[in-house]
């Protein structure tokens, strides 16, 4: 019997297949379907503090605009004595999800203020989430903001949230740090229980007919796998925190590769949106089939087997490898392993 179990955020999971934050978790029914097809946990869609604030401002604006302006109508919409604004709807969703399924429910939060991160994290914990994923999703466009300031913000958020809640806290990261490894180390030290690699950012497109910027979201392609594969491979064994791979996980092979470089779980999104929730089952079957064929006993056995620490050629993970591939460039590069040593003093 092949053992697919893994441990992530202190949670014992039946398989390493976890649907990531996506519209698939908007409905309790679809969360149930995900459980039915074998998802070992579900990360709920993100609660966006900024969106809540914006919606509150908009609601307030539209309920107060045009009031007290005209004798026949001092208002135009009824104003309920109570609004279920703020995170109540999301918290209720957590409660319902917890009641509906047996698999762990990992909430996802995107805050904009330290107060928001802390308050919402506490409320999410109280609502019964098994763990919290901090979706630190910011796209700094301010040229006066330094990298150091941005990085410190990440660290501060993780510290603040960790000190506010008892449940495990994962942090979902962007790959766009000057030194990803250093960032990972600092977040590890700040107490992050897991790192989710990587967040996929909104990148605008242009509509050539309308001459407008279009906010369309692209589903990931299998090529996107390379980025988490690289960094999980490098980080495995070097951070205490669990590692979750997200982006580009489309088929069983992708899962196997990511487990091999050291992922504790692999997160599924685009492939489920594209192929339907039952694709979880297909991937699990494929994973089992491959492991059986190649005589692997457990996910634990797979995990990290091809990481930089354990693979036959550690330099294969390094940027110098790319340099070799492009013969014309003749730089002396510091390898990522060397960089790690310099940073960590290992």
């Amino acid at each position, binding site marked *: 019997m092949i053992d697919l179990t893994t441990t992530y955020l202190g949670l014992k999971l039946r398989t390493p297949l976890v649907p990531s934050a996506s519209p698939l978790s908007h409905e309790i029914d679809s969360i149930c379907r995900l459980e039915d097809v074998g998802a070992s946990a579900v990360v709920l869609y993100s609660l966006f503090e900024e969106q*809540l*604030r914006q*919606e*509150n*401002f*908009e*609601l*307030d*604006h*539209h*309920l*107060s*605009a*045009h*009031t*007290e*302006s*005209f*004798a*026949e*109508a*001092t*208002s*135009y*919409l*009824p104003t*309920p*004595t*109570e*609004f*279920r*604004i*703020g995170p109540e*709807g999301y918290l*209720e969703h957590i409660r319902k999800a917890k009641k509906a399924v047996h698999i762990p429910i990992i909430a996802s939060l995107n805050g904009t203020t330290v107060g928001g991160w802390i308050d919402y994290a506490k409320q999410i914990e109280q609502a019964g989430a098994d763990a919290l994923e901090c979706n630190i999703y910011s796209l700094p466009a301010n040229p006066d903001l330094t990298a150091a300031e941005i990085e410190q913000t990440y660290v501060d958020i993780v510290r603040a949230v960790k000190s506010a809640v008892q449940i495990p806290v994962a942090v979902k990261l962007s790959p766009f740090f000057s030194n990803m490894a250093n960032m990972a180390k600092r977040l590890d030290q700040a107490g992050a229980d897991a790192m989710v690699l990587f967040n996929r950012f909104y990148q605008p497109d242009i509509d050539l007919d309308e*001459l*407008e910027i279009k906010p369309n979201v692209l589903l990931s392609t299998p090529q996107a796998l390379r980025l988490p594969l690289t960094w999980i491979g490098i980080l495995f064994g070097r951070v205490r925190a669990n590692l979750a791979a997200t982006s580009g996980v489309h088929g069983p092979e992708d899962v196997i590769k990511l487990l091999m470089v050291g992922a504790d779980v692999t997160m599924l999104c685009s492939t489920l949106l594209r192929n339907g929730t039952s694709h979880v089952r297909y991937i699990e079957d494929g994973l089992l089939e491959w492991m059986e064929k190649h005589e692997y006993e457990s996910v634990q056995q797979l995990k990290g087997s091809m990481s930089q620490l354990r693979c036959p050629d550690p330099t294969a993970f390094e940027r110098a490898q790319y340099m070799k591939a492009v013969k014309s460039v003749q730089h002396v590069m510091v390898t990522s392993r060397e960089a790690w040593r310099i940073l960590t003093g290992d």
Partner: protein
Amino acid sequence: MSRKFKTMDANEAVAHVAYRVNEVIAIYPITPSSPMGEWADQWASEGLPNVWGTVPQVTEMQSEGGAAGAVHGALQTGSLATTFTASQGLLLMIPNMNKIAGELTPTAFHVSARTVATHALSIFGDHSDVMFCRSTGYAMLCSNSVQEAMDLALIAHAASLESRIPFLHFFDGFRTSHEVSKIVVLSDDEIRSLINPDRVIEHRQRALSPDHPVLRGTAQNPDVFFQIRETANRYYEACPKKVQSVMDKFAQVTQRRYNLFDYVGAPDAERVIVMMGSGAEVTHETVDYLNAHGDKVGLLKVRLYRPFAVSHFLNCLPASVRKIAVLDRTKESGAIGEPLYLDIVSALNEGTKQGRPRITPKVIGGRYGLSSKEFTPAMVKAVYDNLKLDDPKDHFTIGINDDVTHTSLPYDAEFSTEPENVVRGLFYGLGADGTVGANKNSIKIIGENTDHYAQGYFVYDSKKSGAMTVSHLRFGPELIRSSYLVSKANFVACHQWIFLERYDMLNSLVSGGTFLLNSPFGPDEVWDHLPRPVQEQIIAKKARFFVIDAYTVARDTGMGSRMNTILQVCFFAISKVLPRDQAIAAIRESIRHTYGRKGEEIVQKNLKAVDETLAHLFEVNAPAQSTSAIEMPPPFSPSAPEFERNVLGPIYAGRGDELPVSAFSADGTFPTGTAKWEKRNIALEIPEWDSKICIQCGKCAMVCPHAVIRIKVYESKELAGAPVNFKSTEARDKEWQGLKYTIQVAPEDCTGCGICVDICPVKNKAETRLKAINMVPQPPLRVPERENWEFFLKIPELDRRKIKPGAIRQQQIQEPLFEFSGACSGCGETPYLKLMSQLFGDRAIIANATGCSSIYGGNLPTTPWTKNADGRGPAWSNSLFEDNAEFGLGFRLSVDKQTEFAKELVKRLAVTIGGELANALIASPQKDEADIYEQRQRVDVLKERLGKLNFPEAKQLLAIADMLVKKSVWIVGGDGWAYDIGYGGLDHVIASGRNVNLLVLDTEVYSNTGGQSSKSTPRAAVAKFAAGGKPGPKKDLGLMAMSYGNVYVASVAMGAKDEHTLKAFLEAEAYDGPSIIIAYAHCIAHGINMTTGMQDQKSAVDSGQWLLYRYNPERTAQGENPLILDSRSPTKKVQDFLSMETRFKMLTTSKPEDAKRLWAEAQHDAESRYRLYEYLAQRKFEPAKPGE
């Protein structure tokens, strides 16, 4: 029992009681009573129980007639039931009221008394409506103040149960219904203690029930009807005592005593005024003042007007009385006197007959306060002064200058009874800036945090965009009876700089008073920017003068354009009505209370504004001399016609009260083409045309709700003498080759909505944020663009025969004959009206249902309906809300009859006027502009020839010769009219087969009265009267109209497909039969960004929420299916549309589970509707052949 003080208006006060003592509440919106129904609906949707612990059924009906019918039915089957109404609504209830009273059924109807429409509609208050109900058999109980309205509402219900006589409880519309006052709120226990449970049970036992069946509502014959009618007498005889008994019990419970009649003043007064309503409180205050100053006068307040208790009345009058002035707040033309006067004369006569001749005073009658005309202590004093005369003026008027029939009493406007210990504030704001909201909040803070009494009354102008609000506030240690506007203020605040040049606000400031100005200029520079009269009054009155830059504080604290919190802080900081720290703490607490439910962000934003305000508030040291050369301009341009300058101008400037009777026509007729003189300058930004990249599509002009974007195509020679900055380019249309093309903006009439920019399809290739029309700040352009606009107006219009009306790029150069309305900025209705006026305005006659379109179309001082250079343009009238289709059909019948007669006369006079001309006049098809042009030429020739003839038939033909030119009859109204109250008439009119055009401006709610649900409201929308989201689907009016087969029906949405809208208008008008266009109109009541309202329209169509189609019966002649579905299959989900609008979205925050269900049902509605129409449009059309 501790007394609970709250601040509220009378509508809320009455609803508080009525809701708690009823089980069935039937409602329908009408100003000023709508808020009573809104409260009831909201409380029911929140599950608030009545005093017996059950939640009343609150049901909106299709009209007040319907509401009264439903209440009648509920009462007959044993429920406690009520309704609320006013004015025309009350008139519609009268038939049922007669029945309810005839059946001795206990109920109370609550009426915010409002003027009944005569020469004009008025939303304001007087007793003309309730006086129509004197003969219904209802008892009539009048409240004079907000407190009384709450108290007497309960007394009315209790007394009705005791007496079995139904009650009409009334209070003055606006003056009382909308006055915010500090009152003691009746607790549920107090309310319960007044309602006798035995009487409730008796009412139940009289109910119609199959378990103990009876027959009621019989038809009777001459033999017994009369006798049975007399059986009710003893109930009416007993009623007054029962009312008094309830009043006595009420006094025991609440310590507030009322009597059927209450006398106040000198016990030995010789001169007494008898009256009822809010004016009685003014008189009460004046009586106290006059008597305190040595006079001996009295006031008798009538509370129970019907049944009129003669002996109670006589007992209440002091024996000393020698002269009585009876004041009526109504007018009955042709009567000996007004109703209350006649009743008092009769009562005294009855007393004499009953052997009580102890007093035989002289009684005179007078009218006051029609349509909320101010009634002040000065006027009261004038009435008492009149009574001093040996031969006092009888049947007088007070409060106006009647220089025609000389009925009016003179009065000294300077006379004041305002006590020194009352703080009086006047606040001038814009509707959008939150001034009224801030003041209501201040009243609450003072009323509910101190022992002081507080009163607020709010005056709005009639515009829906850029409307001015004036708040009148009083705070004092004694009960405030001053139900009149503040005319001597010790605090005046001007919240908008632009008002400085327009209104003489400081005229009302007392010497040593305080003036607060919201100014973009700081304390050191503001003085030099003030107009001379403002400077002079600050100096002369030794006023303390403060400035705050509230715009900046609002912007910096994220408050946007709402300055409510900021200006409220200023008031408390300066006025010292409360200790400053206590006041600020109270404001903070109030912010938490008011905004807490909307989220912490909103609270913090407001708290930040409080802090920032104090740092930006400065006192200005006024110099000793005025230095300004800035004068206040006349309201209208000197080039305006005399009537506009001398009559409409003063009304616009807020000085309409000063106009004498002789200023007006006797029948309510006014000129059109007057909105253009207002020049309101309310836009902060206006559109600027980029002629280089413009493709001349005409869309910007088409969507402009205010007709401020105009297009002209003209010969280049017209450019001679053009201002330097006047823009002109070559016309791109091949048919106009060689002509010039200009898009010009009317800079001072634009409201700055930006909808033109949103619709513009062109992008500047070098800088894609720019379009061919872009919003830019107005102030720098005001003068140069005004010059350009004036030049543009002088360029002649292109001959209409050279314009293809079927293509927007050409059609939009047709001159709009609907311009500069006071509709909301970005209004979704007005573009349709403007389009109609462009296409057919020079021969259109319009029947306009009451509603938004009748208010922005016909509310004084001006009208947007205008004339072309030939003096032709739409003739417009509003009859009522409910009868508009019939009113318009009357136009058609009349026009057709006169046209027919004119043709008959042409035939009879053919020899005299010339056979060729006669034949041509009769045969002209008048299908297009060229035909119409030629027919007009012929009619001119005809008139010229007829003018020389002097025999009766020639004169008759001359009088109706214009009828030989085809007239276009338009019947216009909103969905409240078309779907609900006017549907019966609409249905009859479209069934008539007559050539009328009905335009339904469908905002899917009663917009004018504040967004109440109609049968057009779509499922899932939150609206007033549907606070929990509309559970049912929208009525399909178009499908119902199509069922006749011979009605042209179109459903359009300009923002989705403008060419389709244009085509529908042309087809509808061309169809020689009834046509109905149902036009989707976005609205402020949807809770949307009005700048992008056309995007909402598009999304409604793209999602299938709104369908585009045309049903043209003419197609059947060619064997074609008459229905063309112009909407494509939905390309998006309904929820994508619903998410754009607060009316739908707010349900997701108030009732998320309901929202989820209703949104899914809304999707289902849209899909089903699309499938049905698709089927109807695609089915093989096989009409039955005659004889089959």
